[in-house]
């Protein structure tokens, strides 16, 4: 089964400047694993050190947020498209960097 993963513009530099990549995957997690295996530099911008998707990183299967499906275990079918969209957040903290 071929699933297309759309690579957001800020992360294309870590993926050979590609806008998308296709992976054989049965779940969203497998597709993302394929992406971060092929383009290892992408991983830290999508996942925390303990392997969880960063809170501000949203993953959509076609137009559905996977949080409302079965998260990374959401099954995929041939021709599906996965999109990665950030929520933008920030703000004042006591410790500037």
């Amino acid at each position: 089964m071929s699933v297309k993963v759309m690579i957001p513009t800020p992360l294309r530099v870590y993926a050979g400047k590609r806008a998308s990549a296709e992976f054989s995957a049965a779940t969203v997690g497998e597709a993302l694993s394929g992406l971060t295996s092929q383009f290892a530099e992408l991983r830290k911008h999508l996942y925390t050190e303990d392997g969880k998707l960063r809170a501000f990183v949203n993953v959509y299967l076609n137009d559905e947020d996977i949080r409302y499906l079965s998260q990374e275990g959401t099954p995929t079918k041939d021709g599906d498209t996965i999109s990665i969209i950030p929520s933008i957040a920030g703000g004042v903290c006591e410790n500037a960097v």
Partner: protein
Amino acid sequence: MSEVLEVGISAELAAKIREHGIETYPYECCGALLGKELGTTDGAESEAIGAGSSREIRSLHPLVNRRDDSPRNRFSVTAEDVREAEKAARAQGLEVIGWYHSHPDHPARPSDYDRDHAWPWYSYIIVSVHTGVPQDMTSWRLKDDRTGFLEEKILPMKVSVAR
């Protein structure tokens, strides 16, 4: 990432960011920076003063701060807002090249929280608003290894190309 970290913005658009920070004070304002990536050109395509500007902001897309629990020191925009900003950019032949937000009563320097919620490549403009009066405006890009930000130079542009 290009080694040239510069972003061009007109005085008019920079003033709009400051005005947005005044409007929302003491809460944080936020919005998208719509523009063009110019790479490391010689500046021929650029309206910026001086050559080598790697990107230019041509338009702004103000957003609503979705944080109603702590809007004084946090801002948040949803993935849907991001999609909407990307759509607005495409409609103008531009792309979302970064984001701006204000730091009410705090310096225009990125926080740890900013770093934890950032991606490289984007330009993050921060305007400090002290007791309702805008102060410094700075721009930053996240380092590839996520350990901190690099400050990028804000180049004043002569004219705003698109509104």
